């Protein structure tokens, strides 16, 4: 097993794939979170009836395989609309929306966890809606939402393995390319799995720690 044809160049190739995984994840989590906060606050603010169309769309993003979302978005933009964009753009766009669908739910749960009475007290002290949101809701909701958000970010990193379908070479795809050439599936897959594990495991532990620490008071 340790007798391998893997060269330094191949390792660089793998590292580039890993970098791509992190870039796609970073961009998607960033925009997905911003959108998710927007959607979540909107849904909470306007009530279930007016938010119904948005709720439906976000539910669709959570009920269709990501692979199909990517294929559909790619087909829609490049062949139906006839716009030339890179697979990278499609991947980031779809993953951002996918992230925002889950994030909106987390944000809404966070806001709902803040007791109504506390917010009324803030408003009756003369705080505006914005002040109430910023100084009362944000700090309290974050404590509830952050552990789930960490879970979501890790989920997006793992799901970013699917962007190979729109010709983005990320970690798993570059591993696959090397497997085809070197014919050493087990060894290469272990390197690939180890990379995901080394990033995901400590962060997941941190999420669990925060959840325990913030829940019992």
């Amino acid at each position: 097993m340790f007798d391998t044809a893997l060269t330094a160049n191949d390792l660089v190739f793998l590292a580039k794939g890993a970098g791509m995984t992190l870039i796609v994840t970073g961009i998607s989590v960033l925009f997905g979170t911003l959108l998710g906060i927007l959607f979540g606050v909107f849904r909470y603010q306007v009530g279930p009836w007016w938010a119904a169309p948005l709720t439906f769309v976000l539910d669709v993003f959570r009920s269709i395989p990501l692979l199909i979302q990517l294929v559909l978005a790619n087909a829609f933009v490049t062949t139906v609309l006839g716009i030339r964009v890179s697979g990278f753009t499609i991947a980031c766009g779809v993953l951002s929306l996918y992230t925002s669908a889950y994030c909106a739910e987390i944000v809404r749960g966070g806001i709902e966890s803040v007791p109504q009475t506390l917010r009324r007290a803030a408003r009756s002290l003369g705080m505006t809606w914005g002040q109430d949101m910023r100084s009362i809701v944000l700090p309290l909701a974050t404590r509830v939402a952050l552990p789930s958000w960490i879970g979501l970010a890790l989920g997006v990193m793992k799901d970013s393995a699917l962007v190979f379908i729109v010709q983005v070479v990320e970690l798993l795809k570059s591993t696959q390319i090397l497997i085809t050439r070197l014919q050493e599936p087990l060894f290469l897959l272990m390197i690939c799995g180890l990379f995901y594990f080394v990033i995901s495991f400590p962060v997941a532990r941190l999420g669990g720690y925060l959840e325990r620490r913030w829940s019992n008071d």
Partner: protein
Amino acid sequence: MFNYNFRWGQALNSLPQMLEGALVTMEIAILSMAVGIVVAIVLTVFRLSGRRLLAAVATTWVEIARNTPALFQIYMVHFGLGSFGIHLSPYLSLLIGITFNNAGYLAENFRGALKAIPDTQARAARSLGMSAGQAFGSVVMPQMLRISFLPMTNQMVWAILMTSLGAVVAMNTDLYGVTSELNARTFRTFEFFAMAAVIFYLITKVITLTARLLAARLFRY
């Protein structure tokens, strides 16, 4: 902008084939869920057993399942086991891969559920003369399954969505596989995958509805 001619007729004609694929998708999801629940219960017992080795096996399983992509796990079952001379069919690889993932996530859910059940119950059962197995099997486990019913429903939806990952092991009988084969033959990508998306959406809705009805019936008291 819209120079594209939609041809839904062709896609609609292939609907029976795609529905057959949907059946295979549901079959894989249900099987992987059934086996996954059993394995997750075994893993939970391993963790509770107090034996270092068994607990380590269970923890390793859970952490690998939760911290690597499902796609990687399916890949590992298909090509990784191939290195040991075990060559599985795409169907089996997909089924085992999803089952592995389900079991890991469910075991973690079960652990969370166990925290909500007071220790005193198991102790009371023991002092009534039940063996450790009886106490777990007839007092703790039913409550554990009840508490984790909602996470199990979510995992079932995940299992349905995960079947699409069979694409990497050349699976061609499930809904995703059938759709991509039809697509390769006709190049009507948008129409076919839009239909597949609708079918996937309907399947997940049926599952969540069924689960809600089941819960209302099972948890009346």
